[in-house]
């Protein structure tokens, strides 16, 4: 009942505006996502989340009465991404672009946008280089690669070490990364961060995306007897790895997967309850509601409901991140804009100072502008993009770290051996 009332009011408002001759031209946004090729699966999930955001904002009367209209391009490879971005900018006159899911595509799209002075709002692309090229109109709303690693390592130091009652310095940690752009940059981040924290990695190897047999990798891990494994994988390799770990009876005290492979909900559909107890460092698919502001929580619930209805499964972390980043654009940036020129949008974005918990996935927004002590050449990076750690449970998934975002305590620590799972 409540829902229909809101819908009615929205429609009335919209028609009133139209009737009053303010047939506002729609705000046109270019969306570049991989709809074919190797990244198609996650690209399409992101695309569905973006469309839900558009529908939801248009139902709420758009932005100051102007509807949002997407013009999309299939960014299946960096070269295709650049051609599509330029097509949208030059042919359709787009001033705002967003999207990209994967790092190589994000690097390509943001570069094409910058070349034409167009405002690019990157939702999930994580490569560190995105904000290190001295670009002025590119903003990385999602977390950069190193934050994934830091979240996992901080979780080990602040939480797991105590639960396993072992001093951090004696913890044997293994790092496994898929040697594409995302895997490598997260791996590099973890290597640097653990080095700084005085933790030694007993295993640190990259593997090829076309690997069809994980036996050598699991066997080598078994031989290095790690306490904790951090693995950055894509969907297919994650499934292959977990099955092989079970087959070779490779047991660890804790397993932390990073992003796409381990955060996609259909991992459970593929390997069933083998997934229970695995931790995942990624955008939180679901956040402790009392952290979010009330109105943000309502938006979050509506998004989860619509996504589940459309896709038949809850959203993966990156899909939620895609939604929350574009929603922030619709609610915190565009309403303040008048000319919608890239420079104006840039100033608005740089002035944003949203605390954590303002966005649907618990992140806040505060962009660097060549003023970040760690790296003065960095601009457009969101310092308040929060990457947490959640855990697969029998019932679904629970956010377990950082404590202020957590919805539940970590369970199954140390991880029971395969026969007991």
């Amino acid at each position, binding site marked *: 009942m409540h829902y229909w009332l809101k819908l009615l009011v929205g429609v009335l408002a919209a028609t009133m505006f139209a009737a009053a001759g303010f047939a506002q031209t729609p705000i046109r946004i270019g969306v570049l996502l991989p709809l074919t090729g190797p990244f198609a699966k996650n690209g399409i999930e992101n695309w569905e989340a973006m469309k839900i955001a558009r529908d939801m904002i248009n139902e709420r009367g758009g932005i100051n009465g102007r509807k949002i209209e997407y013009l999309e391009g299939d960014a299946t490879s960096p070269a*295709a991404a650049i051609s599509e971005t330029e097509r949208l900018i*030059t042919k359709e006159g787009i001033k705002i672009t967003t999207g990209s899911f994967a790092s190589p595509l994000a690097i390509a799209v943001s570069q094409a946008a910058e070349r034409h002075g167009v405002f690019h709002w990157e939702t999930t692309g994580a490569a560190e280089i995105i904000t290190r090229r001295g670009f002025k109109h590119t903003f990385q709303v999602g977390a950069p690669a190193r934050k994934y690693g830091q979240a996992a390592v901080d979780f080990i130091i602040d939480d797991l070490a105590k639960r396993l009652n072992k001093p951090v310095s004696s913890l044997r940690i293994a790092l496994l990364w898929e040697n594409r752009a995302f*895997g490598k940059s997260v791996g590099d981040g973890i290597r640097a961060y653990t080095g700084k924290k005085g933790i030694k990695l007993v295993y640190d190897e990259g593997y090829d995306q076309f690997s069809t047999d994980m036996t050598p990798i699991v066997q080598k891990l078994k031989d290095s007897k790690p306490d904790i494994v951090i693995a950055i994988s894509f969907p297919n390799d994650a499934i292959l790895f977990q099955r092989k770990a079970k087959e070779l009876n490779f047991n660890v005290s804790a397993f932390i997967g990073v992003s796409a492979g381990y955060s996609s909900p259909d991992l459970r559909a593929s390997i069933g309850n083998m997934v229970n107890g695995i931790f995942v460092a990624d955008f939180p698919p679901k956040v402790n509601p009392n952290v979010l502001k009330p109105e943000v929580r309502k938006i979050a619930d509506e998004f989860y409901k619509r996504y589940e209805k459309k896709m038949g499964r809850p959203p993966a972390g990156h899909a939620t991140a895609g939604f929350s980043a574009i929603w922030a654009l619709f609610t915190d940036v565009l309403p303040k804009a008048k000319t919608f020129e890239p420079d104006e949008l840039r100033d608005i974005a740089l002035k944003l100072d949203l605390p954590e918990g303002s966005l649907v996935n618990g992140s806040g927004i505060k962009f660097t502008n060549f003023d970040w002590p760690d790296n003065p050449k960095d601009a457009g990076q969101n310092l308040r993009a929060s990457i947490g750690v959640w855990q697969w449970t029998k019932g679904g998934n629970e956010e377990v770290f950082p404590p202020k975002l957590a919805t539940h305590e970590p369970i199954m620590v140390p991880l029971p051996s395969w026969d007991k799972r």
Partner: protein
Amino acid sequence: MAQSPGRISLAPARGTLSVFEIALLVLCLVLVVAPIPQNLQDIIVLTFLWAGLATAWNIAGGYTGLISFGHAAFFGIGAYTSTILLVRMNVTPWVGIWCGGLLAAFCGAILAVICVRLRGPFFILSTLAAAEVIRIAALNWSSLTGGPEGLAISPAADPVNMVFASKHAYLALMLGYLLLSYALTKLIDGSRYGYYLFAARDDEDAASAAGVNPLAVRTVALMLSAALTGIGGSLFAQYFLYLDPTFVISPEVSFQFALLPAVGGLGTAIGPVLGSFLITPMSELLRSYLGSKVAGLHLAIYSALLIVVVLYFPSGIAGALSGLSRRKGGKS
């Protein structure tokens, strides 16, 4: 030299330019200067670049019979050499391009030593394997190639760095590359060396008995083809300003090099150019209009059309247009 019957009217007697070729050249020059919308210019830039690359491949594939599926390796070597020289050693691409070409030619020689004795499917699969070895090397040699995170060139327009703001400059650059490849092909076409290539392709033993060393001739052809492909790779890098080993040195890229001449007309100078003028715009337009409607639709249509064209126009567009197929003359 009298025009023998059944000869492709598009491709005149060896070494001379036909009316059709001159008309095509004029059209290209017009396209470079004409005030066309930017996104169409982007398609034309790609069409010229791919026409040049297809012509380069045709020197090995069409003229010498070395059907290679490893040219993405030369393409990648050229692209990475000029980009590394620019990004890491600040060497202007105007020099880097030729270094890339030379290095690619050197690798072409190595590949020739390995594979040029092989024929038919063996050669195809060996070049495919060689390119995969180079892809994996590029992916893991992060200190040199930037590894999976790729290598980016700053988009600040600067003629010294061969980065331009206006598309016209890129159109001229790519047309120059196409003309370079095409001129070399025509040169070979009418030269003694060209005849050696055709002889080695048509009958190795007969060519050898006539004093032509087939392996040496093929090696030189592969080196030339590799060098031109390397230069094309550098231009690709200068246009897109970003290199990712997984996408630059991939079997799909090698396939595209071989596809355009096959569709256009293998072993003819004009074939690869016609192939690119048809396929490149078609695949770009298909992707931009159907790309996001139904995921995968545009590639399904593209591949279905490809199968039909390849099966029912075996001698390519050049062949079909000039009725070459009338003069089938047995299996080549």
